[in-house]
C-alpha cells in the first residue's frame, strides 16, 4: 500500500533538512492540534469504568460500546465525582514523588467535564484509605459543595474539601467508623463496626457542625451489612451477608431505619448476594438489581452468575437474568467472534461461567444493565428491562475495577 522510501531517503541525504518539509506541509489538509471535547451533560448510557493497572477511569457509552475518553488517577482508588451541574469532575488522588516511594501527596483534583483537562487541585492530608471495591472511598455532598474523602491509616477520618472555593476545609475524625456516603445537602454517613452509622453534618465552612452515632441498625457480628450500598433519592439500601435489605432514610433531619426485608426466599436457599459491587438500582422504576451466586464460602465476595431484579415497593423478585460468562466473552473478544453467532453460542457452552464481579444500571427510561469482570476484563451490556444481552464492550482494560454512573 505504501510507496517506499524515495522521499525520506532523499531528505535524509540532506542533513538537517527539516526546513525542506515546510513547502510540503503548507499543503496540509488536516488541522493540527485538535482535541475532542465531550457534551456538556453526560449521555444517558454513559458509564465510568475504573482500571487498577492502567490507573484510569474510562467513559464508555453502553448504548454504542464507544470509548469516549479517560481520566488518569494515581495510586489507589480512582472514583470520579461529578458536580450536580455536570460541569466538573472531582477525583481524590494519591501520588508518591518517586512512584512507589518518596513524598506522598493526596489531593482532590478538579477537571472540566467537557474537556477532561485538570483545572485545579486541593491538597488534603496524606491519609486516604485504599480498599479493593473502590465503593465508599469518597462522596460529594448533595448540594455539590463539599467532597469528603475517607481516610484510614489505620485511624479513620474524613477529609473535607470545599470544591467551590478549591479549599481544604478540614479533617473530621470518625473513630470506629469507616467509608463515606452522601446523606443530605451537607451531610455524610459512615458505617461503624458495632452496627451503627455515624452521621456527620457540616457547617457553612465545611467544618463539623455535628457528629451523631445512630442506633444499631444491624447485627455487626451475626449478619453485617456489606459496604457496597445503593441509593434511591433519600434512601440508601444496604444488603447483609445473609441477603437482608436494610433501608436507611437520610431524607429528614434524623436518619431513620426502614423495615428490613429479604432478597433470598427459603426456596432459594444456597443463593447469596455477592461480588465486589453487587447492587444496582434503577431509581425511576424502583427496581433493585442484585448480583447472586451459589458459592459455598465467602459468598459475599464471590462473583455472580445471575442478576436478580426486585421491585423495591413490593419487595418481590420480578426477574432473574442469567449472565454470560466472562471467560467466553474474553475469548470471543480476543478471537473477534461476535456475540449472537454460532461460535459465540458454543463458547458460552464450552467455557465455564465463573461469574461477574460488578454491576451497574443506567437511570434513563430505557436502562442498561452493565456486568463486569476484572480478570479477564470484560464488560457486558444488557437491556435492564428485558435482560437481553446487547453487546460486550471490547478492549475495555486490563484490570477493571469500579463501575460508576457519571
Amino acid at each position: 500500500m505504501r510507496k517506499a522510501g524515495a522521499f525520506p531517503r532523499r531528505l535524509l541525504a540532506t542533513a538537517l533538512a527539516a526546513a525542506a518539509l515546510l513547502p510540503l506541509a503548507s499543503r496540509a489538509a488536516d488541522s493540527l492540534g485538535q482535541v475532542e471535547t465531550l457534551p456538556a451533560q453526560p449521555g444517558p448510557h454513559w458509564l465510568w469504568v475504573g482500571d487498577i493497572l492502567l490507573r484510569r477511569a474510562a467513559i464508555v457509552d453502553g448504548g454504542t460500546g464507544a470509548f469516549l475518553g479517560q481520566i488518569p488517577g494515581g495510586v489507589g482508588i480512582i472514583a470520579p465525582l461529578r458536580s450536580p451541574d455536570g460541569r466538573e469532575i472531582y477525583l481524590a488522588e494519591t501520588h508518591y514523588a518517586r512512584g512507589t516511594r518518596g513524598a506522598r501527596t493526596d489531593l482532590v483534583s478538579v477537571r472540566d467535564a467537557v474537556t477532561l483537562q485538570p483545572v485545579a487541585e486541593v491538597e488534603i492530608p496524606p491519609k486516604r484509605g485504599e480498599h479493593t471495591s473502590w465503593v465508599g472511598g469518597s462522596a460529594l455532598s448533595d448540594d455539590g459543595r463539599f467532597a469528603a474523602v475517607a481516610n484510614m491509616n489505620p485511624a479513620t477520618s474524613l477529609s473535607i474539601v470545599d470544591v467551590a472555593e478549591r479549599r481544604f476545609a478540614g479533617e473530621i475524625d470518625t473513630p470506629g467508623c469507616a467509608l463515606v456516603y452522601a446523606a443530605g445537602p451537607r451531610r455524610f454517613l459512615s458505617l461503624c463496626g458495632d452496627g451503627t452509622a455515624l452521621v456527620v453534618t457540616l457547617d457553612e465552612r465545611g467544618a463539623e457542625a455535628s457528629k451523631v452515632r445512630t442506633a444499631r441498625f444491624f447485627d455487626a457480628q451475626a449478619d453485617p451489612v456489606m459496604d457496597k450500598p445503593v441509593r434511591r433519592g433519600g434512601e440508601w439500601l444496604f444488603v447483609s451477608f445473609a441477603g437482608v435489605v436494610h433501608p436507611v432514610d437520610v431524607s429528614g433531619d434524623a436518619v431513620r431505619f426502614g423495615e428490613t426485608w429479604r432478597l433470598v426466599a427459603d426456596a432459594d436457599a444456597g443463593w447469596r448476594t455477592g461480588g465486589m459491587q453487587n447492587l444496582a438500582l434503577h431509581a425511576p422504576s424502583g427496581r433493585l438489581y442484585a448480583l447472586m451466586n451459589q458459592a459455598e464460602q465467602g459468598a459475599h465476595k464471590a462473583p455472580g452468575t445471575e442478576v436478580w431484579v426486585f421491585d423495591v415497593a413490593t419487595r418481590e423478585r420480578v426477574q432473574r437474568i442469567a449472565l454470560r460468562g466472562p471467560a467466553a466473552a474474553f475469548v470471543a473478544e480476543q478471537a473477534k467472534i461476535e456475540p449472537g453467532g454460532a461460535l459465540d453460542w458454543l463458547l458460552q457452552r464450552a467455557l465455564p461461567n465463573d461469574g461477574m464481579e460488578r454491576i451497574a444500571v443506567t437511570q434513563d427510561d430505557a436502562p442498561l444493565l452493565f456486568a463486569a469482570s476484572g480478570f479477564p476484563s470484560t464488560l457486558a451490556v444488557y437491556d435492564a428491562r428485558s435482560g437481553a444481552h446487547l453487546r460486550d464492550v471490547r478492549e475495555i482494560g486490563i484490570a477493571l475495577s469500579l463501575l460508576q454512573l457519571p
Partner: protein
Amino acid sequence: MAQRNGGDVDGWLETASRRLARTTSRRGFLGRIGAALFGAAALPLLPVARAAAQPSRAPSAPESGDPASCDYWRYCAVDGFLSACCGGTHTSCPPGTQMSTVTWIGTCRNPVDGKDYLISYNDCCGSTYCGRCFCNRNEDDRPVYQPGKANDINWCMGTPTTAYSSTVALVLGVATDGK
C-alpha cells in the same frame, strides 16, 4: 465456521480450554492482580494490632505443606501475592520491601497438630505489585468498616509508602481463646 455443538469437542482440548478459562479468569496472571489487592482476617476494631511491637518467643508451629501454594494451611485468610513466590518466604518479605507494622490476624488450623494458630498477615510494601501466586481465601472476611477483619484493605500502613507488593503469614501463637 462452527460445525458442531459444544458436546462434540475433543476431550483434551475441551479440558485444556476449560482449565485455561478457569485459570485465566480466577487464577491466571491477570487474576492475581488486584482481584482483591490485599489481605486480611480476624481482630477487633481499631486500634488494630501493631505486629512489629510484638515479641517473638515461642517455637514455631510444626509444618507441612507448600508455602508457595494457596492451599498452605497458614493462608486460610490470606488475600494477596505470596511473598514466598516473590523473593521472600512465607515469613519474610522480598528484598527491597518493608514489612507492614499494622496487620490483620487470622485463625488457621494446622493439619499437623490439629491446633488453631493465630496468623498475622503482614504486607510487604514499598515496591510494585509482585504479580505472582495470588491467593484469596475469603473465609470470615468482614466489611471495610470492620477493618481488623477486612481483607479488602491495603494494609501497607506504618511503612514508608502504601505501595503493595506481597504478603507473608506469620504464626503468632496457638489460639487458646474460646475454643
